[in-house]
């Protein structure tokens, strides 16, 4: 039987109110119905072809019905083609996916945007037979296997698998462009022109085929020109422009670029003249690194971990020069405050002790060395300061205690303790014992965040939902007490109808808060007043 069984006819007849259709009539009608349906479809396909489409739509069927002087089918001309779904459990039963629409949703939803009007845009599909690599064109397969040649070989002679070297076709214009940019970068003669070149690099479409050449160029020049400060700076500018260009897909080439960039960050010597401001280059490169990590960190997961590993190694190696340390610190600090907290602050204490002799003008006779040391110290200070600043800002729900609460009994304690600390920090002769104190203290500060850290501290953590602040750290310092107090105060304020979850959240907040506080105090111990500009006033009033 055909695709229209007589049951279909019977069902259709019933649906339009003919109840007494004889089976014979249905049997006779079925093939004719099929024929008519096919006829309509044939005409509909013609309409579709003349509408230059390859998908049949309801409007084509309407057109076909019109051709046969029949009434069109109303209510289906909704634009796009229908999507049929297969009914589960049936072989050839399909239905249109017709969602139920809630009136409320329709009324509440904002008015749909007006459809955009038709327009025409023009672009070069090909220039003298070569497709330019512009975003309007389909992406070319840059590396194409020589399939044609192979087939040809097979046909003609015995089976020889000839693989021609892969050709990378580069248009003449692009070649010239590359040469010009390379020249400008190396020559350093006309900064104005170079600036324009950078803008072009950062904005022009169609440069993608050049990216491998640029990465190669940069790698070569960096390894060759470590003594040439200006060249390095130019190269880093080129890297930044390439990164900025929205039309370039630079990710596959990052692995080639990163070594050059890291070199410019932590190399022992950049440039050979005293006047070369290599600090600036390092700062610039550090920003570049953070830009890369932000953009590609998600897709390229190992990127940041590898980078930080390199930088931390440079940072912690006492044999490395101070300039290298500086670069590493700048790089790490550019990666965000979490990195700083985990990697720099945890090592701050021993490092500062190493740096101490260099800082001292009396002990360190070499002026240059001393300058470098101060530079490193400054970088460290900045990193730590920014970190703490961020950290204090990151907790917007830091329960800023109500003013009255502040004034209540707590103020005394808070004020008393920092004063003592300040004193101790200022008196430089007191430092050695102080340091010892903090080294025992330091790890504890960090540990609560280090979730994979050693177990001992975690033992009481689960219970810490209720009394975490007390347990997570030794209650030796006075903040502990103040925290405990403030918590109690809070509790009192809120009354007793608090859910346990609420407690947990609060506990966490307090824990973080406590950490920040401890960190702050520690930093204050280390840096003294120098850290103060980084700390927002509210927090300062709370903690110091």
């Amino acid at each position: 039987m055909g695709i229209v069984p007589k049951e279909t006819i019977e069902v259709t007849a019933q649906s339009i109110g003919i109840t007494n259709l004889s089976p014979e009539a249905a049997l006779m009608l079925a093939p004719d119905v099929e024929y008519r349906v096919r006829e309509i479809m044939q005409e509909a396909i013609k309409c579709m072809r003349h509408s230059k489409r390859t998908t049949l739509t309801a409007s084509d069927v309407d057109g076909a019905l019109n051709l046969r002087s029949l009434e069109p089918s109303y209510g289906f001309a909704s634009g796009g083609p229908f999507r049929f779904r297969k009914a589960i459990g049936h072989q050839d039963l399909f239905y249109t996916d017709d969602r139920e629409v809630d009136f409320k949703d329709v009324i509440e939803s904002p008015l749909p945007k007006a459809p955009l009007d038709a327009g025409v845009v023009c672009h070069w599909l090909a220039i003298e037979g070569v497709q330019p690599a512009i975003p309007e064109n389909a992406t070319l397969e840059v590396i194409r296997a020589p399939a044609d040649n192979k087939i040809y070989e097979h046909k003609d002679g015995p089976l020889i698998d000839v693989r021609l070297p892969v050709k990378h076709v580069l248009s003449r214009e692009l070649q010239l462009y590359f040469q010009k940019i390379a020249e400008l970068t190396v020559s350093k003669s006309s900064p104005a022109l170079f600036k324009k070149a950078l803008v072009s690099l950062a904005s022009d479409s169609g440069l993608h085929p050049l990216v491998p050449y640029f990465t190669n160029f940069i790698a070569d020049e960096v390894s060759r020109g470590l003594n040439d400060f200006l060249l390095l700076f130019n190269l880093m500018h080129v890297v930044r422009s390439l990164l900025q260009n929205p039309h370039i897909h630079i990710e596959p080439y990052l692995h080639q670029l990163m070594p050059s960039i890291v070199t410019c960050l932590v190399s022992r010597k950049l440039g050979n003249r005293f006047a070369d401001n290599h600090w600036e280059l390092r700062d610039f490169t550090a920003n570049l690194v953070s830009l890369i990590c932000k953009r590609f960190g998600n897709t390229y997961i190992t990127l940041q971990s590898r980078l930080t590993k390199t930088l931390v190694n440079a940072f912690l190696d006492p044999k490395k020069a101070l300039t290298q340390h500086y670069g590493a610190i700048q790089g790490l600090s550019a990666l965000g405050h979490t990195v700083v907290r985990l990697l720099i602050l945890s090592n701050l204490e021993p490092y500062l002790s190493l740096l101490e002799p260099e800082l001292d003008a009396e002990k360190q006779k070499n002026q240059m060395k001393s300058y470098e040391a101060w530079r490193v110290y400054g970088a460290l200070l900045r990193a730590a300061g920014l970190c703490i600043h961020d950290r204090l800002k990151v907790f917007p729900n830091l329960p800023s205690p109500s003013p009255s609460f502040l004034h209540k009994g707590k103020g005394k304690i808070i004020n008393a303790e920092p004063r003592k600390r300040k004193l101790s920090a200022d008196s430089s002769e007191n430092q050695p014992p102080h340091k010892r104190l903090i080294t025992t203290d330091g790890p504890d500060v960090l540990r609560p965040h280090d979730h994979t850290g050693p177990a001992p501290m975690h033992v009481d953590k689960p219970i810490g939902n209720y009394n975490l602040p007390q347990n997570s750290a030794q209650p030796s310092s006075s903040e502990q007490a103040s925290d405990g107090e403030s918590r109690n105060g809070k509790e009192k304020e809120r009354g007793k109808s608090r859910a346990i979850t609420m407690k947990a959240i609060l506990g966490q907040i307090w824990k973080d808060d406590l950490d920040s506080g401890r960190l702050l105090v520690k930093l204050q111990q280390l840096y003294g007043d120098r850290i103060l500009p980084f700390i927002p006033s509210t927090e300062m009033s709370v903690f110091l």
Partner: protein
Amino acid sequence: MDPEQVDEFVMGYLKKKGFNSAAKQLQEALHHNNGGTFNSTDYHNDPELTKLIRSFSQSENDPTRYRDGYSKLRSWAYNSLDLYKHELLRVMYPVFIHCYMDLVGKGHTREARAFFNSFRKDHEMIHLRDLQKLEGVLVPSHLEEMEFARSLRQSKVNIKICQYSYDLLLQYLHRTESTLMLGIINEHINFQVYSGQPNSSSDDIDAVTIVGSFQETADHINQKEIQWGLLEDSLEDRLEKTGSLLSDSEKGQGESKDGDVDDSKKRSNEIGKQGSSLKKLKKDKAGNATAKVARQETSIVSPAPRVKPELALPVMSTDVEESILEDLRNRVQLSSVAMPSVSFYTFVNTHNGLNCASISHDGSLVAGGFSDSSIKVWNMAKIGQAGSGALQGESDTNDQNVGPNGRRNYTLLLGHSGPVYSATFSPPGDFVLSSSADTTIRLWSTQLNANLVCYKGHNYPVWDVQFSPFGHYFASCSHDRTARIWSMDRVQPLRIMAGHLSDVDCVQWHPNCNYIATGSSDKTVRLWDVQTGECVRIFIGHRSMVLSLAMSPDGRYMASGDEDGTIMMWDLSTARCITPLMGHNSCVWSLSYSGEGSLLASGSADCTVKLWDVTSSTKLTKAEEKNGNTNRLRSLRTFPTKSTPVHALRFSRRNLLFAAGALSKPAS
């Protein structure tokens, strides 16, 4: 066998077949002989003959006989010698469809369907579309009603077959006494037996295509003489004359050429020629020097004959003439090594509503016909000037759509009352013609932005309309199976070309204006004489609906593209296919020859523009026929678009290729 019985069989057979008078005579003769001496001559005692007669008398209506006969023939053909197999298999298809139609005709719907389904796989590869049509034939009345089935029933299929294959087939049919198959073969197949070795299986396309009754008429028609040459005293002619003069004078003074170039630049800016950018202009000029050299070569290679125009052609104003001459002089010479530049116009935000696109001869105007009955004309020259940075990408398109003063930047032409299926620019670009599903053709002025004339004549949707190469006249074609010739100043058609067996889907003028070509859903392309309205050529070979046509500028060749993506190159004088150009895998919407006819560009629904080398595929025919190498087509380049089916193509007079299409969202 009882003689009586035999007589009875014979009587029954005659009656069944409707030979009533013969039956009557036989009866009389029997009566007459009854009493007298029965000189039993031959047939009663001849056992072979009796068997044959009996087989005829066997229940004729037994539907299983078709199945048995066909399956036996099939298995025999498949087991035959490899060398002859493809020729024998070619016989299977007509036998198959006629068996099916016989079954349907006798009312065995169920058996017919079962038969059809069990063997359709064999033929699906080549004849899929025919099978889809035939599948719907289920009752005898459909056979009458359906054009395709009727023409199949009435006609004979020509099959070329070598002597040995033919003998094999006949031997088999006789040996197995499959009279039914023999009957079908005799009735519907016309063997053209030739001596020698069988043909290679691939190259004769016409052998596998079954067309209606007009195979013979086609052959007959194709004998007619046609004048495919160019018009005498055409601009090309004049250019060649002046061109040689120029090249002489150029030897003396190189500066004059520069001045010339500057002039042309000015002029083309004034007229808005070459549209949007000066770049194109420069490019065109760059190829100028080489062009001159190469042109002289080609003029030696193919001196196309000159013919007189049969139509009264419009007189061209000297301005227009001059600018065309200038363009021709500055034409870039294209070849397989010198590729054209392609400028692509992408329609955005069409919401699936763009039915057709057309580009003016200089590429500066683009018209789109939409399914909401509107026509929109964009002036690309203006757009190019307004927003120099307008090509940045999709984000900019919004701003670009709205002109500088907040208005839309196209001209909206409203007037049709149905989807617009075709639009065409007059050669100078001052008029647009559009055809629509509302059965009318409308003439619009691009200067007044208004409708001038509405041409009514067709009875069904008008699929295509094309201006003649010299303007004034235009041709249209429609679902009503006719093509018509019109002139702009009359609302009635001048000629009606009837003869296609199905919709006429596309139409194209011959460069000398004396002929038009039409492509149809009956899978043929026809060439019509404009003056007499007669069909002068039928081109058979396509396997599906013909969607696009293009004539080579020298008027010798024609290219046609179909629904499956096949492009065929035809020699007009011999009506033979020179090369099938395979490469596209979806509808070929548009074809265009380059100015000097060395390249053919094709645009397809598979989102590519392809360039084909015409010279090599036509020139090498003779040499390669000897080698038997059929792969002489040369696809030079494929330019994929991002996601834009290519609706229209045009080579400008300077050989810049313009393409247009609507951006379609890839199916998600």
